[in-house]
């Protein structure tokens, strides 16, 4: 019995240790990033353009580029994803088509991001002739975000109580009216928080935009959808691997990384907090 008790205590300690090690590593990571990044972070860093072959200056064009890419991606993926989820939950016939769709969604979700990048390059940039551009990158990221948005919307729709749907149909509403007037408004908070979470994911992706949208260095802001852009994630990568003055460029990379990290964490935290509020306020 003593031995069993000892074993029990020991295993608890080991399990706690796993959590502790993970936490310590992540805390080291975050503290390091904040410490190094905050040394260069300033208002000027955010709002000025890179200077002196990226050894000085700020990240304004990269901020704008990431913003454009993300907005474009979500603008494409959200309507498409929501409509697909509606088909899945309300129309979904025949059954074999649902199965194919599910395989497609799961495969999309599991496909490595670099493959999206290659696809975007081969199809959008080369075959469709969009060149390396915001548009090509935004579309590539949209396909990457699509499975996330579909899965999340489907889940949001499925949590709408069946009673609401039934009540609406019993009042003579058609399926479309029931979806647009009862199901979607009820599921909207959850659909939106999911969309915000996908923004966080899209904004941080590097591999998909490497060959479709991002450029190493640009002093001016894009003027049209066919321009190439700087983007925060790619900027970090470029500074770390292709720079010629590491002593000056690594600190800038840290600053950029901190900005990206803060953006992604803030956006995701907002979504998670909103979801928590909605769940608590939920009246049904």
């Amino acid at each position: 019995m003593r031995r069993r008790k000892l074993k029990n205590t020991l295993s608890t300690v080991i399990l706690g240790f796993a959590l502790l090690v993970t936490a310590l590593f992540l805390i080291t990571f975050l503290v390091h990033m904040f410490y190094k990044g905050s040394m260069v972070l300033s208002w000027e860093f955010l709002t000025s353009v890179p200077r002196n072959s990226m050894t000085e200056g700020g990240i304004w064009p990269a901020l704008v580029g990431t913003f454009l890419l993300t907005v474009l991606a979500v603008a494409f993926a959200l309507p498409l994803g929501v409509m697909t989820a509606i088909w899945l939950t309300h129309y979904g016939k025949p059954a074999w088509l649902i199965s194919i769709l599910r395989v497609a969604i799961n495969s999309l979700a599991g496909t490595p991001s670099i493959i999206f990048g290659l696809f975007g390059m081969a199809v959008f940039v080369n075959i469709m002739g969009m060149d390396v551009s915001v548009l090509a990158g935004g579309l590539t990221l949209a396909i990457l975000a699509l499975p996330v948005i579909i899965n999340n919307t489907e889940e949001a729709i499925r949590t709408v109580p069946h009673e609401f749907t039934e009540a609406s149909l019993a009042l003579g509403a058609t399926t479309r009216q029931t979806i647009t007037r009862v199901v979607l408004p009820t599921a909207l908070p959850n659909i939106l928080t999911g969309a915000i979470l996908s923004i966080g994911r899209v904004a941080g992706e590097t591999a998909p935009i490497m060959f479709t949208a991002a450029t190493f260095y640009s002093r001016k802001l894009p003027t049209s959808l066919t321009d190439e852009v700087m983007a925060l994630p790619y900027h970090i990568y470029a500074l770390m691997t292709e720079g010629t003055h590491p002593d000056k460029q690594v600190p800038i990379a840290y600053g950029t990384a901190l900005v990206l990290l803060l953006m992604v964490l803030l956006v995701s935290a907002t979504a998670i907090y909103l979801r928590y509020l909605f769940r608590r306020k939920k009246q049904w």
Partner: protein
Amino acid sequence: MVKPQLQTRKLNLWFGKNHVLHDVDLSVYSQKVTAMIGPSGCGKSTLLRCFNRMNDLIPETRITGDVLLGDEDIYKNGSDVSRIRAAVGMVFQKPNPFPKSIFNNVAYGLQIQGKIRRSELEERVEQSLKAAWLWEEVKDRLNQSAMSLSGGQQQRLCIARALANRPKVLLLDEPTSALDPQSTAKVEELCLELKKSVTILIVTHNVAQAGRISDYTAFMYLGDLVEFDKTEKMFTVPADKRTEAYLTGVFG
């Protein structure tokens, strides 16, 4: 002989391979309350849901026979399900208001029928809430969420919501089983008032409730309509042994 408002002829229903209703012939008379009673799983709720085609929503449902609303066969090919459902209101077991305002709940049925003038809409909402005896309780907070109402109020709101469509028939599926006794009494009284303008078909588990409010009673058992008669008569001299057993509480 009065012409029935609702009628089934040789109605059979299957869920997949499960034969749920057998050759049901039922008549529901205008401006009367008809109660359907019977043990759980006897098919009374399923039968109720045939009258506004809500069973269509369940996959692999198959129906033979006729269901008539007035003279119209509601299962006829090409008939407009939405119009039928608007004409045959339904109230469910658990109050199920939408997570919208009180006003918008009642207005819902009217808004989906197409464009309607705001003044007319407001008038119809008020009428319906008055008819469901809810107006006095909610007239000052029409824009509040319907979820803030009590269970009994929510159920009367659902009745008002159905009445706004000016249905010919109101189907009630155990409308008081989730309510406290006081709210139950109120809904029962309301039924007696409403039958002046609308035909009521109510499914209930509660034999006493059927006795209190219904003019006619249908007793169902294992998918068969065993007996249908004036409530008074059935409750005093039931024709079938199974009816008698159920009414006296031998099973149920």
